[in-house]
């Protein structure tokens, strides 16, 4: 049996829909229940639903063989995983945003950056030699500039609506993020056949093929 960890929230429905197209189906009533672990109809796959940041943890330790999680989370976690497939779901961008776009050039001292993604933000500004103080938040990051906590934010943007409504504009784009299939290194070798089968089925589904 292959255990797949799926990031709860934005990713979950898209991931399950894609898996269904790849022939891995979960019964409707189970999907609507609040259980955090489910088995698919064929009994070959077990799903566990965890917070996005925990997906790389479960997979790296081999508790889950595979996972579905956004690239943003992977960049932040620095986990040692295989990433054989870009699923193209939950597409969004990781951006630098500010209330005043000129802040980057006007303020040459220390910029304060509020973010949930301290690793990504640190690497981005570090590579450019821009001195920043990273302020780690766990949500509602868009509030920080308005309240004077930070000059900039680094955050995920899907449509840009939340940014606009909080008076922020995109200053720079750091990376695009989509849902990825991640695989544990040991499982990739020890359950090679089952994982190859899953990867191929997902590939076919992504290329518009029907379900098996």
């Amino acid at each position, binding site marked *: 049996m292959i255990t797949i960890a799926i990031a709860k929230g934005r990713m979950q429905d898209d991931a399950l829909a894609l898996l269904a197209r790849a022939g891995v189906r979960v019964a409707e009533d189970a999907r609507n229940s609040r259980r955090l672990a489910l088995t698919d109809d064929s009994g070959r796959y077990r799903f566990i639903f965890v917070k996005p940041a925990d997906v790389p*943890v479960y997979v*790296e*330790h*081999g*508790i889950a063989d595979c996972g579905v999680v956004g690239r943003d989370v992977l960049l932040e976690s620095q*986990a*040692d*995983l*295989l*990433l*054989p*497939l*870009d699923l193209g779901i939950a597409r969004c961008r990781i951006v630098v945003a500010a209330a005043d776009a000129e802040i980057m050039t006007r303020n040459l001292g220390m910029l304060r950056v509020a973010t949930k993604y301290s690793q990504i933000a640190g690497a981005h500004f570090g590579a450019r030699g821009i001195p920043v103080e990273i302020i780690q938040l766990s949500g509602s990051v868009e509030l920080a500039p308005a309240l004077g906590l930070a000059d900039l934010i680094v955050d995920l943007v899907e449509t840009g609506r939340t940014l606009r409504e909080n008076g922020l504009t995109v200053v720079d784009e750091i990376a695009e993020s989509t849902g990825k299939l991640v*695989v*544990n*290194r*040991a*499982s*990739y*070798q*020890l359950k*090679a056949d089952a994982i*190859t089968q899953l*990867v*191929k089925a997902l590939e076919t589904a992504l290329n518009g093929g029907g379900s098996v």
Partner: protein
Amino acid sequence: MRYYIGAEARLRRTIEDTAMSVFAAWSYEEVITPSVDYYDLFEQGMGQAEAQRGFRFTDNDGRLLALRPDVTSSVARMAATLLSERPRPLRFCYAALVFRQQPQSHAEWRRENTQLGCELIGGGGHEADLEVLRLAAEILSRLNLQSSYVITINNVEIFNGVAAHLELPATAREQLRRLIDTRETAELQRFINGFSNSEGRAFLQPTQLTGKRDVISAVRNVITNARSVAALDSLEELWTAIESLGLADHFEIDLSDVSSLDYYTGLSLKVFVHGAGTSVGRGGRYDGLTGNFGRAEPAVGFVLNLDALTEVLARRMTNV
């Protein structure tokens, strides 16, 4: 930081004794190396990036010391200096603690690990490669893991030949290496499209890079540079020997295992066991290493992680 108490400590000791007795049966002599040595030794032996993961501190006279982050460096220097007059090949084994900080993989990392390892120095060619592979296989089957282990093998010169053929600068080579290592197919496709040379395409189908003999024949259609072809020939010859020993079920070729390219010079191997989320052993050929200590000669070896093996076997005992 881990305690082993009673039954677990006994199990751990049994595993260590089993491995050491297999080494002894193959005429490997035990060697005990200093646990504290000058940091320079490890930088010469492991390369800067790896050696810096060691715990470093200074002596009273200001010289930089380290708790040994590996044993191979010490054994290689010993072979090149203390034992330079001894007839080759030299066979050494050890069960020794190594100390590392900074995780490479969060799941794998402990501050201290006991390595069960061996080094075959002064022996080149397939016979030497095959000898250490057989040793690893014998230890695992003596630990009753015969139905649950996989040893993956590769030859790093296959990748090196392609990278040299593409004339990649160091940063691009590292990027290509990382993309192959993590099997990022989509990104890899984008990277390779930037080159008119098509040899990199060999790595585009990660699911076809892992398997038995057919893996080699598949990439032969794409990879034609002399350096890689020689490495493919060598890997295939090794595979033939593995087959003739009846060990093919336990071995897999994995051409995408390019994790420690700058250390190994030919064969590289990783050991996986059902029940462990990370590899439990690794090794390969490092012909360049003893040259760092003044006497270049072929060398090959591997280490098994005693703590990881103990965890797998302990869990198995409680589940029965």
